[in-house]
């Protein structure tokens, strides 16, 4: 009776792992940065986007205060905010990364906006991104350029 259930559960947990390779992860101090991705752009006029997952395994809070990349002259942290049905995208001076929590820059919420692109972002390529943290300092990670229709990272975030 129990065996098929356990086997089923095992399979269910295994399947997502099989479908997605683990994301590249860069750890520094208490922080782990992974699943950095962007969308391909059409030319260089439109701003590109930057999404990433940050895990704080420590016992002290940290803050993401800025991003830097050679592909964009003006990279900024933004947050999509809904007020009475109106979407606005205010600049986020810093994003809190509380102790013990995982914070994602993801569609519809916090995101990096990359303005003044140096070159078109081409699907399948990647670019370096340096994240500046208040306590952990600078962390650099390779950012995958996914298709313009991508809605999430093409890899799984390891638990």
């Amino acid at each position, binding site marked *: 009776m129990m065996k098929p259930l356990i086997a089923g559960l095992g399979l269910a947990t295994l399947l997502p792992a099989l479908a997605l390779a683990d994301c590249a992860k860069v750890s520094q101090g208490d922080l782990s940065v992974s699943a950095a991705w962007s969308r391909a752009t*059409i030319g260089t006029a*439109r701003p590109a986007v930057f999404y990433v997952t940050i895990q704080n395994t420590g016992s002290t809070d940290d803050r993401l205060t800025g991003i830097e990349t050679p592909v964009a002259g*003006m990279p900024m942290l933004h947050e999509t905010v809904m007020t009475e049905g*109106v*979407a*606005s995208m205010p600049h986020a001076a810093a994003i809190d990364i509380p102790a013990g929590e995982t914070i994602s820059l993801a569609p519809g919420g916090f995101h990096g906006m990359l303005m*003044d692109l140096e070159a078109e972002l081409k699907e399948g390529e990647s670019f370096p991104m340096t994240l500046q943290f208040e306590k952990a300092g600078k962390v650099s990670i390779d950012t995958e350029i996914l298709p313009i229709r991508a809605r999430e990272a093409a890899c799984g975030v390891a638990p």
Partner: protein
Amino acid sequence: MRRRTLILGGAGLLAAFGFMLTLGAWQSGDLPWQEETTTSAARIRAADLSAMTWQLTSHEGEHVEPQDWLGQANLVFFGFTWCPDVCPMTLLNISDWLEELGPDADRLAVHLFTVDPERDTPEVLADYLSNFDPRITGLTGTPAEVARAAEEFGVTYRRVPRGNGEYTLDHTSGVFVFGPDGRLSRIIDLHENPQAAVPKIRQALKQEG
């Protein structure tokens, strides 16, 4: 016993009266905290394609007016192609809904109204939309034509300078679902899950033209 019923009944009546007054004030947008967003919300609720007068140009360069759309269900949303986060997300959500609707999606037309006519010319819209579901149409016009359309839908948008001559736009982000009679049926919010969105569209498809 009877007295208690009377008192309770009286209290109930008073409460109901108070509620009606508040409701009336709310509907007319008279409550102090409502301000201008309520007039916009009320206009959205009353949106009726058959009463609209805007005229715009599609991404294929064709002249479009609201009366062209009567007799079919329509999804309408406002955005712009320079928008890095919300607009791709909305376009991807809609692509998912169309897939989920299957053959029923043939009775539905989907339209992106730009709030950025300066940059979003028909050619720019065509280039951008070629990356998404081909059933999505883009609409643009002169700034005055776009402003008129937005006003008739009760949509607000605002240009926000970003420095270096760059700008972005805040805008109403819901997807409006219109029945074949031209009346607004439902609004789908940005963060609504697809399980809730598709039934709203199916409901509009069921209405008579």
